[in-house]
């Protein structure tokens, strides 16, 4: 899964999403509604099944095979391949690093994008649409191009280091590429447009009248933010966080290029195993770990939003 291809905004299914009509007294019209629903959903579901579900099942099945040193796959049904990374402390560290990288990138990205999204949502300027277009314009260039851009900017003789050295702030160039710092900087910038878009589309509940009502009732600007603005925008903020987290831990190109082989996360390990060592079963096993990580985070997200009674 590459970071450049998935723009999907997460709309996670929950109990609320069950089709209507679970009562005892089902009406005929409701049954017809449901038939229409399935008829309309069928092409999409079929497409998803073929392009997503089948490969996914194939991948999971692959994790139960055994990879042989010569690159051949032994068709079998064993837990060894899956257990191997769990018993190897190296893969525990890779998993932990992946998780931390996702958290850090999502946190920084959301914190930087939140004020921008708030400003763009509230702006009444006639340049508003232009500003929004500018904010998401980076999506017009591919992430690969932007990653190379960052490599130039952050490199030893790049813009940042030459400026800092020129100003005499540092004597030795800072190491900003081929490490986690570079990866985080690159990912944050590349994912910001997504974060801004998700937040802006989720700020619908923020009626400016609510903030005015709070202010008229004696709330200082800071209290208005803490008690009205933030709680009402928190669901959108959490969705953006989840999206950026998922995109980060599954991103490969930026991680690989800016990491320069020194950053080891699940995505890079999977790539190495699959294309370098041709050990597909082991790559599949690592992918399953990545999937479990997704699952854990989505479960946490759902619990949090439920707990906060925010998913209205």
């Amino acid at each position: 899964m590459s970071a450049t291809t998935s723009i999907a905004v997460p709309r996670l299914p929950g109990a609320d999403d069950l089709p209507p009509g679970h009562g005892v007294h089902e009406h005929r019209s409701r049954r017809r509604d449901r038939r229409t629903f399935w008829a309309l959903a069928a092409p999409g579901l079929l497409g998803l099944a073929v392009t997503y579900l089948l490969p996914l099942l194939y991948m999971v099945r692959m994790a139960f095979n055994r990879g042989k040193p010569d690159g051949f796959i032994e068709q079998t049904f064993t837990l060894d391949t899956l257990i191997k990374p769990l018993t190897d402390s190296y893969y525990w560290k890779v998993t932990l690093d992946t998780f931390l990288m996702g958290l850090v990138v999502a946190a920084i990205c959301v914190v930087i994008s939140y004020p921008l999204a708030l400003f763009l949502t509230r702006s009444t300027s006639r340049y508003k649409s232009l500003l929004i277009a500018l904010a998401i314009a980076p999506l017009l260039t591919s992430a690969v191009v932007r990653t190379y851009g960052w490599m130039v900017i952050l490199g030893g003789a790049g813009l940042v280091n030459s400026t800092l050295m020129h100003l005499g702030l540092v004597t030795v160039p800072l190491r900003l590429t081929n490490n986690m710092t570079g990866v985080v900087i690159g990912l944050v910038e590349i994912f910001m447009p997504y974060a801004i878009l998700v937040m802006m589309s989720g700020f619908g509940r923020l009626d400016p009248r609510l903030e005015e009502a709070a202010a008229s009732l004696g709330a200082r600007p800071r209290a208005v933010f803490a008690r009205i603005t933030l709680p009402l925008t928190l669901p959108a903020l959490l969705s953006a966080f989840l999206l950026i987290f998922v995109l980060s831990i599954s991103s490969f190109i930026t991680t690989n290029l800016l990491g320069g082989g020194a950053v080891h996360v699940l995505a890079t390990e999977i790539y190495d195993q699959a294309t370098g060592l041709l050990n597909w079963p082991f790559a599949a096993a690592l992918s399953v770990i990545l999937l479990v990580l997704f699952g854990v985070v989505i479960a946490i997200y759902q619990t949090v939003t439920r707990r906060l009674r925010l998913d209205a």
Partner: protein
Amino acid sequence: MSTPKLALVDLTKRYQPGLAPAVDHLNMEVEEGHLVALLGPSGCGKTTTLRMVAGLMDPTAGRIVVDGEDITSIPVHRRGMGMVFQSYALFPHMNVAANVAFGLRMRRLPKSERLERVRRALDMVQLGYLAERETKALSGGQQQRIALARALVVEPTLLLLDEPLSNLDAKLRESMRGEIRAIQQRTGATTLFVTHDQDEALDMADRIAVMNGGLIEQFGEPSEVYERPRTRFVAEFIGRANLLDATVVADRGPSGADERRYDVQVPGFGAVGAVGAPGLTGATRTMLVRPHRVQVHCDPGASGSPGTVESVSYTGDSVGYRVRVGDRAQLAEAPTDGRIAAPGDVVRLDWDPASAYLLPEEEER
């Protein structure tokens, strides 16, 4: 008069330089405990005025004075106003009690007092049983009353209501009028009430400010604004009106405190009587006759000016006529107990001279 509760001094708001101001040198004084309706057509600057008083918007020029103190530059959160928005603006992430408690929380009141005052405020709007409910699940009328309780619980210096009834259905609107008025009188809260509905203003207000194009055309008691409008605009905006061109012929002596009775000449009606300010002899003025003051005589021998009935509308309480007299149609509203004329009938119209009023000369602006 003692210091007014609220005084607006040359209050002006210009949204964009070059454009006509939305509120233009507005002056007004509101007495303590009064409910004042800001009444006018959509776009005349009512909301803008209210938002400036609330502190949600800075005036371009002018001053806002409360209890003799200039508050123009005091920020909204220190003005202590209670505002009710047209959309109610209840906080969707708080239940009813938390909404009402919000202002008290911001004032850092101890919990026991807070709970007590929230309880009293909810009882006042008779919604105590909803305290723990989510606001989404409430009906429009309930949300309206919660918004009112939330604004009143802080004992605001002024209660500001922006078209509070316009989102309710007709039946509920009627009953909420009485309820809001009763609560306002019980609490004694000086209130500014924005509305475009003249019935609402007449029914509820102690004083009505009729606004037009950013200006107050007239400020006065409901009966005064209705019976003695200062301009054609006010006469037509408040209630229905027959406006006739009258030439004042002769002064027939005093009528009431400082008005005179006149003989006037009206095209289509000939010589009729009217009242107006002193010194109008020889002038031409617009004459106002309210439709329900016009008497419709079906009997051909009766006195009055003849006209042809163009249309009849029967409402049960009364019957409304459009009657063509000369080249203009006039409105009349008659009780339903007499004979009801039909379209095409010739009827005679007249009125008590005391109920025909000659408007003052309009100033150019």
